C-alpha cells in the first residue's frame, strides 16, 4: 500500500473541498481526487415556494457572488411570468451586477490569491495570507481594503443590502436612481477604474514576473472553454449567447435557453458536486489528462478565451497584450488570475458606461407582472463562471421544478485534472513538502472555487 496525502481543508477558497493524492510504492502519483463536500439542495427546497421569492433565497448559494444568483434567478422568474423588465430596471440590475464583479475580483486577487505570489508559495503558512501582506506592506493594504470596500459600499448604499441582495424584483428593480445617486456613484466608479488599472499594472510588473514559469506550467491541462458573448462577439457578463470553444479554438454559439442540448452533468462517487461536460461533442466524459473527453472550463480565463474582443477600450488594450503574450485560446491555469484583472478593468469601464447614460435615472423601473405557469431560464456570467437557473412554475406561480448549474460547478472536473497534473509534476519519489502541497492548492485557487 502506497502513501496517501490529504490536503484538508483546501484553504483560501470560498467553498468546501479537500484533496486526496494516492502514491504508488515508488512514491509516484497514482491517483488524485478532489472531494467537493457541499450539498445543500437548493434545487429541491425552492420547490413549492412562490417564484418571485426565489431571487431572495438563492443568493445564499454563495455569499461572495450573491448578486449573480440574484440576477440569474430574477431573469428566470421574469421569463416564467413572461414579463419584460422596465428598461431602467434592467440597467440598474446590470449596473449592480457589474460593480459586484469588480468587487469580487479585487477580493479574490488581493485577499485570497496574492499571498502565494507576494509572500511566496513556500513561505510559512502563518504569514502566507492577506494578514501577512498587511503586515509586510501596510500602505498597500490600506489602499486595497479601502478601494474594495468602496465598491462594496456602492452596492450597500444604493441597494440596501450588498450581501444577499433584494432589489431585483419581478419586472425590474425596487428602487429608482436619482441624479445625485448617479453622479456620486459615477465619481466613485472613476476612482475604482483608476484602481483597477493600478492593480493590473502592479500584477504585471510585480506579481507575475518572478513566477512566470510557474504561471505557464502549474496545473496546465487541455480543455474547451465556455463563456457569454454579445451579438458582436464581445465578452458580456450580464447576458447574450453562450459560446462553447473546443481546445482547438473552434466554437459553437447557442442560446442559454437550450443549454440542456449542449451540457450534461456527470456524477462521480467521490464528490457531491456534479461535473458538467459538453455532451454535444459526442465524446462522453473523461478526466484523463492525456485524452480528456467533454471537458471544458468556465470563469475568467474561459471568457477571455472565447470572446472576440472586449467592448471597452482599456480592457480591449489589455486583451490584445494578453493574446500577444499567450495566444488564443491559452490553457495555462494560473492565467485565470491575469484574466480576472482584465475583467476588473472591463467591469469598471462598463459600470461607468451604464452610469453615463442618463436613462438609468428613469423613474419607471418596474413592469407589472403576475404569477402564471411557465418555464424560465436565467443566465449570467458569475465571477466563477456561467450561471444557469432554470425554473418551471405552476398556475399560481409556485416553483414546480428548479435546476441550477452554478459557475464553479463547470470547473469541478478541470480542477480535479489540474490537481492531478500538478501532483504528478511536483511529487517525485514520495517527497512531499509543505511548499509542494501549497503549489498543488495554487492550481485550485486559480479557479477561485
Amino acid at each position, binding site marked *: 500500500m502506497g502513501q496517501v496525502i490529504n490536503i484538508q481543508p483546501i*484553504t483560501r477558497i470560498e467553498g468546501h473541498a479537500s484533496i486526496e493524492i494516492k502514491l504508488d510504492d515508488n512514491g509516484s502519483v497514482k491517483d488524485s481526487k478532489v472531494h467537493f463536500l457541499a450539498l445543500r439542495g437548493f434545487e429541491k427546497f425552492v420547490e413549492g415556494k412562490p417564484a418571485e421569492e426565489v431571487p431572495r433565497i438563492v443568493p445564499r448559494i454563495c455569499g461572495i457572488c450573491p448578486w449573480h444568483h440574484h440576477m440569474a434567478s430574477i431573469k428566470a422568474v421574469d421569463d416564467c411570468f413572461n414579463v419584460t423588465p422596465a428598461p431602467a430596471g434592467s440597467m440598474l440590475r446590470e449596473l449592480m451586477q457589474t460593480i459586484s464583479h469588480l468587487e469580487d475580483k479585487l477580493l479574490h486577487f488581493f485577499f485570497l490569491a496574492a499571498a502565494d505570489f507576494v509572500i511566496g508559495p513556500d513561505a510559512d503558512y502563518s504569514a502566507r495570507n492577506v494578514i501577512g501582506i498587511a503586515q509586510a506592506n501596510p500602505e498597500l493594504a490600506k489602499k486595497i481594503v479601502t478601494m474594495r470596500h468602496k465598491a462594496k459600499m456602492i452596492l450597500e448604499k444604493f441597494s440596501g443590502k450588498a450581501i444577499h441582495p433584494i432589489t431585483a424584483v419581478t419586472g425590474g428593480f425596487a428602487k429608482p436612481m436619482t441624479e445625485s445617486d448617479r453622479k456620486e456613484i459615477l465619481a466613485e466608479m472613476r476612482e475604482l477604474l483608476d484602481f483597477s488599472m493600478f492593480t493590473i499594472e502592479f500584477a504585471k510588473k510585480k506579481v507575475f514576473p518572478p513566477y512566470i514559469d510557474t504561471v505557464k506550467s502549474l496545473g496546465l491541462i487541455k480543455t474547451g472553454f465556455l463563456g457569454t458573448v454579445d451579438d458582436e462577439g464581445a465578452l458580456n457578463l450580464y447576458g447574450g449567447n453562450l459560446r462553447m470553444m473546443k481546445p482547438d479554438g473552434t466554437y459553437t454559439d447557442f442560446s442559454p435557453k437550450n443549454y440542456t442540448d449542449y451540457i*450534461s452533468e456527470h456524477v462521480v462517487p467521490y464528490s457531491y458536486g456534479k461535473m458538467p461536460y459538453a455532451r454535444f461533442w459526442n465524446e462522453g466524459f473523461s478526466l484523463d489528462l492525456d485524452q480528456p473527453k467533454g471537458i471544458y472550463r468556465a470563469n475568467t480565463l474561459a471568457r477571455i478565451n472565447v470572446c472576440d474582443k472586449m467592448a471597452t477600450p482599456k480592457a480591449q488594450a489589455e486583451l490584445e497584450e494578453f493574446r500577444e503574450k499567450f495566444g488564443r485560446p491559452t490553457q495555462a491555469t494560473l492565467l485565470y488570475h491575469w484574466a480576472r484583472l482584465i475583467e476588473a478593468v472591463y467591469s469598471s469601464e462598463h459600470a461607468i458606461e451604464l452610469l453615463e447614460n442618463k436613462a438609468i435615472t428613469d423613474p419607471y423601473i418596474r413592469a407589472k407582472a403576475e404569477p402564471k405557469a411557465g418555464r424560465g431560464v436565467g443566465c449570467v456570467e458569475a465571477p466563477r463562471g456561467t450561471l444557469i437557473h432554470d425554473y418551471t412554475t405552476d398556475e399560481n406561480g*409556485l416553483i414546480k421544478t428548479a435546476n441550477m448549474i452554478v459557475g464553479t460547478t463547470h470547473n469541478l472536473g478541470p480542477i480535479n485534472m489540474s490537481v492531478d497534473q500538478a501532483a504528478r509534476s511536483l511529487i517525485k519519489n514520495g517527497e512531499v513538502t509543505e511548499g509542494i502541497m501549497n503549489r498543488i492548492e495554487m492550481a485550485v485557487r486559480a479557479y477561485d472555487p
Partner: protein
Amino acid sequence: MSEKVTVASESLNSCAGCEIAVVDLGARLLDVLGLIDFVHIPVLMDHKYYGQAGDKTKMDIPEATVGLISGGIRNQEHLEVAEEMRKKCKIIIALGTCATHGGIPALINEFTNDDLFKRYYSTESTDQPNKIPDDGVPPLLDRCYAVDEKIKVDVYLPGCPPHPDNIINALTGLISGKTEDLPKKSVCDTCPAIRHGKGQVEKLQKFFITPEFKNPAEPIDNMKCLLEQGILCMGPVTRAGCGGDKKTPRCISAGVPCRGCYGPVKQNGNQMLDMLNALASNGIDIKSLPEYSSMLRFSGAHDLLKPKYTKEEV
C-alpha cells in the same frame, strides 16, 4: 508580544457571506487585526486540520479564546469540526442565522435526504448515476441543525449576514470582557416607516407592486408601513439589528419588505406562528398567503421545519 485575543473561525453549512461581512468592516478590519490574532480561519489562512503535511490522523484546531462558527451542522465533518471548536475555544460565537437558526439551508428540513438525492442527481441536465456519492465525502446527518443543537453556544450573532457593525461590536465587547447579545427588539421597533394602526388591511397581496411612497428618492421615513400597504413584511417577528449602528432596516430602506433574516426576536421564537398570530389578530385573512413555510426560511432548524410527509404515509 501584545495581549492579542486569539480567534479561530470556521464555516460549516454556509455560503461564506458571514466571513465576507467581516471583510466588509473595511478599514476597521485593519484595526481589528491589530487587536486579535487569527489562529485558524480556512477562508483566509492555510492552517490545516490534520497537520500542515496532512500526516496526522486526528483533527486539530489550535486553542483560542474566541471561536467564530458560521453555518449550521449538516454532515459528519461539520459535527466533528464544531465539537473540536467547542473543545479548543473558551467562547463560542454562533455567527449568522445559519449558525443560530439553520438559515436558508435549513429549508431542506422540509424534505428527507432521499428527496434531496433523488432530485439533485436526476435534474434535467444530469446523467443518472448508479449510486449516490459516498467515497471520501462526509455522510449527511438526517437534517440541518443550528449549532446549539449540537454544542453549547455562548453568544448568538444572527443575521444573513450579520451587519459588520454587529460583528465589530461583539468582538470589541469580548476584547474588553463583555459578552453581549443584540437587543431583543423587533425590526418594526427600529423601522421609521409611517404606521397608522390596526384594521387597515384585510388581505395580503404578493410583492408585485412598487410600494406607495411619497417620494422614493427620500428616506423611508416617508414611506407607509409595508404591512399596512397589504404587503407581507416579517418585521414584527424578526429581531432588529440588520441596519447596524444606523438602525434603519436594510431591506425596507430599499422599499423591499423584510423576510426575517435575523431570525426570531427571542432566540427560541417561532417566526411563522408569531407572524400568523400577528396577522390574524390584526384582522388579516391568512388564507390570502400562498404558503406559510417560507416564513421559517431563516429559522427552520430546532425541529421547526419537518418533512411534509413521512415515507410510511406515502
